[in-house]
């Protein structure tokens, strides 16, 4: 066990300061500091607020991770950090912190892709990642369908959102329904008491759309349809059935996500589906993905919610995999790249 390298991972691409410690595929610590409450009154993440919070949280979060794992920084064998994609100023705080550790401890640094890290984190819960695997990543920042032959080196985008991310649609619909930010958990909770009685549109699922945007997603039209439906209700003086709207909206999102993910598995002959990102915490998404995977004979792997949302452990998990597969480390001049393409797993 102890002969496997100890990797410390840092994640600061959005509003969570995450520091994780992983040895091989074993999770030792996953410390998180979130600035989400500071953003709530703005109705979305404010980049400068997030960057300031990362600076203040960085050292305390590193210490907390070490305490939880029962290690000292001197024990760390390699550093991994999210180099992109994400908010530029926020990424920069994490990358600079990672370089400071690399420089001080005399250990290599791996600048990695945030999306690949969302896939690699599954190893910490379900053991070695079967490759190729299909990955459906859904959060407030991304909605991607990825074919992953090698999580350290070969990640191929099959589709992505052409407008809003899935999590963004949850936030916007929550606002229309008078629910708090971030909307995901509140919609999920409200939907449990509702029925799927409104037939909201499924974006990019028509025959023509399936030709041009086979594995892409669109949630903007759905969001507008929900807002229009609610406003018409209000205009007619009738109460808005919040639970039913939440359930029907959620069903439309989850239906498209899982339908396209399973179609991608079938067409690429892939037998494993990893679901990650904050929206993977959604109970309806988990249930429907399980049903459809079971029906298709695909193994579904969804990490527990704490590993699906942005965290440092996922970065450490990918870093540990890079070390074990002998991938080249980055240099100290590693840039933070806010628009790092998903095809680029590591930066130098």
């Amino acid at each position, binding site marked *: 066990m102890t002969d496997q390298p100890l990797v410390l991972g840092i994640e600061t691409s959005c509003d969570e300061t995450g520091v994780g410690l992983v040895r091989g595929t074993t999770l030792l610590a996953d410390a998180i500091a979130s600035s989400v409450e500071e953003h709530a009154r703005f109705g979305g993440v404010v980049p400068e*607020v997030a960057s*300031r919070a990362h600076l203040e949280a960085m050292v305390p979060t590193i210490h907390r991770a070490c305490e939880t794992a029962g290690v000292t920084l001197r024990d760390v064998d390699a550093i991994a950090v999210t180099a992109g994609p994400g908010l530029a100023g926020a990424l920069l705080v994490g990358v600079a912190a990672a370089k400071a550790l690399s420089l001080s401890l005399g250990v290599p640094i791996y600048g990695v892709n945030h999306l690949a890290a969302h896939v690699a984190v599954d190893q910490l819960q379900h053991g070695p990642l079967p490759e190729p695997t299909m990955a459906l990543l859904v959060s407030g920042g991304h909605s991607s369908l990825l074919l992953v032959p090698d999580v350290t080196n070969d990640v191929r985008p099959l589709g992505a959102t052409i407008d809003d991310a899935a999590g963004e649609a949850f936030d916007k619909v929550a606002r229309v329904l008078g629910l708090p930010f971030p909307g995901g958990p509140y919609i999920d909770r409200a939907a449990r008491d509702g029925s799927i009685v409104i037939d909201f549109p499924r974006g990019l699922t028509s025959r023509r759309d399936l030709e041009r945007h086979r594995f892409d997603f669109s949630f903007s039209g759905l969001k507008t349809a929900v807002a*229009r439906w609610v*406003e018409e209700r209000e205009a007619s003086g009738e109460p808005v059935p919040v639970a039913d709207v939440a359930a029907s909206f959620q069903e439309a999102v989850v239906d498209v996500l899982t339908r396209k993910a399973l179609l991608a598995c079938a067409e690429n002959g892939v037998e494993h589906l990893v679901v990650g990102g904050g929206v993977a915490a959604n109970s309806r998404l988990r249930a429907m993905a399980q049903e459809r995977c079971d029906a298709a004979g695909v193994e579904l792997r969804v990490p527990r919610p704490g590993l699906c949302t942005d965290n440092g452990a996922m970065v450490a998990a990918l870093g540990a995999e890079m070390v074990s597969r002998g991938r080249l480390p980055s240099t100290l*001049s590693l*840039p933070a790249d806010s628009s790092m393409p998903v095809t680029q797993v590591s930066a130098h």
Partner: protein
Amino acid sequence: MILAFDTSSVAVTVAVHDGKAVLAERTELGAQAHGELLAPMIASVLGEAGVGVAALTEIVVGVGPGPFTGLRVGLVTARVMSAALAIPVRGVCSLDAHAAQAVAEGAVSTPFAVATDARRKEVYLATYDLTGARITGPTVVLPAGVDPAVAGGPVIGEGAALYPAVFADARGPRLVSAGCLATYAVARIMAGDELGDTTPMYLRRPDAVESAGRKRVTQP
């Protein structure tokens, strides 16, 4: 053995100081590249000085004021190195170090001000007596809003050079150097002064508008 650096200006500047003198120093321009420049520069300055990280006993960092993104690169680097090496870190107002540099270089012999570029047509400004002790500031102001008695006197720094119509007696040094930052910090420590912590001098609130509630998609 002190490692000093500052990322509050368009430059990244790094120095190693042994308590008596600067052993090595480097300054590079790169307004958008602080994150890429700083760590390799620290490595190369330490190499040039023949000093390993294990020999460092203290870190001194400029806490601004300065453009936020670059400033944070220096501050997070200083804090994390301090934690990893288990050595103290202290912060110095970057304008104070700049003022000390002006006095040391003989650029001024009367009370003066330091003005650096705050972008958005503003400057970070502080005033000093002829020994380099701060009298007022730092603040962030429009050049036109600076007290004419201050603006008309000697003003050090790139902020003064950028607005010659307001600052008629603009002088160098234009940018602060880490060698001077370290020398200034050592002098303060020898004099028994307490240096500050690494709280950033932002001087501006984040730009953010509180959400105005939901937007309608249909006409009311």
